[in-house]
């Protein structure tokens, strides 16, 4: 049985393979003007799905724009946008069943919105108030929702990749017809967790979709300094899984690829790798200034490929949308987000008692003593601990 899956062709002179030996085409369905390529095979999409995708695009654009400016005003400490990558994120999420578990890296809040996370819930997390589902324990944008099958974001890079293999494997063992999808950037694909997670999924046959947003930069480091091979897709082939490279700014291509990836994963109990070629139009995070490492010309070139605009034009061409309704959707969300900011920043912060809960299922006696000592101390110096002192 050993090495049974290897090819048996023999040669009699030295002959090396290199990255050019792999021919990886890129799937494109939608053109920049909103028309589709001739002979393109369409994904499964109706008007209702298109409207849900469009609505998510608009909300996400508005959220990103407003929250980045809220961060600049000092109202929240940190923010990350997904501007330019909406088609990759929303197009893939729209291909899933709501019961499929999403393990995101950090830039995929559009997925959460697509699933129904409310504007108020976004704000509660970003303002770390007492309504935050995460109880104010993580930086802004580290969302999570059990109800929406979106696992809570972890800052360490790529750790979600082998976890996704485990989540998907659990579905398989439980006989559930669901997959796990895991998002990451091309930078994260350098971490050991990426290799461990893909190899395990391929060998153990776990229905996992590994979705790489190849967005050009890992913070400031361009792809040329991240990998020397044929992108990330070549690795999927190397690990023995179905692999596809798609135009990550093409909503229909991403949707089609992910719909078929999901079907394949379920039918064969097998993982699939999708490499979406896209571009991070925004900064890595609010702590980053991309003008130090890339040109305005480069950004301008990618703005021509704006995935949200391209999808809007397609909907207009189909008469499923008009410019006026598109514009009023932006207006509606601008107002909604602004109002939500004002409400969320006035909600009280989580109670100090939550400092010691959820470390283990129950606080240990040692931890209870530490909290009691802390409260005594705060009572003695209430002015030094204004966030907690009034509510002990």
């Amino acid at each position, binding site marked *: 049985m050993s090495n049974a899956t290897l090819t048996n062709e023999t040669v009699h002179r030295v002959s090396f393979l290199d990255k050019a030996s792999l021919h990886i085409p890129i799937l494109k369905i939608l053109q920049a003007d909103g028309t589709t390529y001739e002979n393109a095979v369409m994904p499964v999409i109706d008007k209702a799905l298109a409207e849900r995708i469009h609505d998510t695009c608009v909300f996400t654009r508005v959220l990103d724009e407003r929250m980045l400016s809220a961060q600049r005003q000092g109202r929240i400490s940190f923010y990350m946008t997904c501007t330019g990558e909406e088609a990759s994120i929303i197009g893939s999420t729209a291909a899933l069943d709501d019961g499929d578990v999403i393990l995101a890296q950090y830039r995929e809040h559009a997925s959460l919105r697509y699933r129904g996370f409310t504007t108020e819930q976004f704000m509660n997390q970003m303002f770390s108030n007492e309504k935050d589902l995460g109880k104010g324990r993580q930086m802004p944008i580290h969302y999570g929702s059990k109800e929406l099958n979106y696992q809570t974001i972890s800052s360490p890079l790529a750790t979600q990749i*082998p976890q996704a293999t485990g989540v998907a494997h659990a579905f398989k063992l439980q006989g559930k017809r669901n997959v796990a999808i895991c998002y990451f950037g091309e930078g994260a694909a350098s971490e050991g967790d990426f290799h461990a997670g893909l190899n395990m999924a391929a060998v153990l046959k776990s229905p996992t979709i590994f979705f790489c947003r190849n967005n050009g930069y890992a913070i400031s480091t361009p792809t040329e300094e991240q990998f020397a091979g044929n992108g990330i897709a070549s690795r999927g082939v190397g690990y023995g899984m179905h692999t596809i490279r798609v135009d990550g700014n093409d909503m229909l291509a991403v949707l089609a690829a992910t719909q078929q990836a999901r079907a394949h994963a379920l039918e064969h109990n097998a993982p699939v790798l999708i490499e979406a070629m896209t571009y991070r139009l925004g900064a890595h995070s609010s702590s980053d200034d991309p003008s130090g490492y890339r040109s305005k010309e480069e950004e301008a070139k990618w703005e021509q490929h704006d995935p949200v605009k391209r999808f809007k034009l397609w909907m207009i061409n189909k008469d499923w949308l008009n410019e006026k309704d598109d514009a009023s959707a932006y207006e509606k969300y601008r107002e909604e987000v602004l109002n939500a900011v004002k409400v969320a920043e006035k909600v009280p912060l989580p109670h100090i008692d939550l400092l010691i809960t*959820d470390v283990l299922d129950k606080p240990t006696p040692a931890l209870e003593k530490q909290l009691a000592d802390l409260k005594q101390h705060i009572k003695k110096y209430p002015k030094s601990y204004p966030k907690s002192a009034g509510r002990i």
Partner: protein
Amino acid sequence: MAEMNMLHAINDALSIAMQADKNMVVFGEDVGHFGGVFRATSGLQEKFGRDRCFNTPLTEQGIAGFANGLASNGMTAVAEIQFADYIFPAFDQIVNESAKFRYRSGNQFDVGGLTFRTPYGGGIAGGHYHSQSPEAYFTQTPGLKVIIPRNPEQAKGLLLAAIRDPNPIIFFEPKRLYRASVGEVPAGDYEIEIGKAEVVKSGTDITLLGWGAQMEILEKAAVMAEKEGISSEIIDLRTLSPWDIETVAASVKKTGRLLINHEAPLTGGFAGEIAATIQQECFLSLESPISRVCGLDTPYPLIHEKEYMPDELKTFEAIKASVNY
């Protein structure tokens, strides 16, 4: 009660737990048909099928990450790391992920159904990559429980409790005792309470505290001390995190002296934590400084293993020094 060695007891515990919990899976390097390099999982694949007891590729970080994912999605996952020396590639997944799953999500997600089993410790001529005792790295991480049994009966009861505890657990197994420690083990299902130390022998002059394979050393040293007229109380901590401060403090208040023995290096070892806490709790009862008999601050050696080990002679000397302080 049947007589069995520690490996049989562990195998028995795994089998009982898998029988009772259809969602439980056991996996790791070579654990499938082969039964693990120490044979702890022997027969489980035959009994429960390849879906429930299986091999993984050689990737500790993968095993830990995969285990986190399984446990986060409703499974009871028991992952074997073949040697505790090789747990470090999995360190990030354990320390940043397993330990924080519940806390970071505000209790929306947890990996409470996860147990890592891993053989630790020396005394088998294994050199430094088959002999380490890395427990202290994990006791400093909130969100994990750390357990070390000392004999077959303890191993079975503690492992059953660990598998069913709603928190991620690292279960260190003293590999030196896998076959060497044989004893009566109750048949059927039973659990030993996590977080509770056991007073193995009562005494009046000094408290000897340890865990795992070092309990044998403490017992031998206590017999030597007894011949000198020194009465030792011996405590097995069993759970290092969270540890049973109450039982240890009560004993030290009675005896007035404490000696802690562990195989891991002295500096930054868990004995330091115990010493600091007991000094706080029992300052006025202490008749002598708290004594630590531990490994040296070197990598675990091969040829000078006997010299390195905190053995019964070193322990005996430390007992006398404490009593005669």
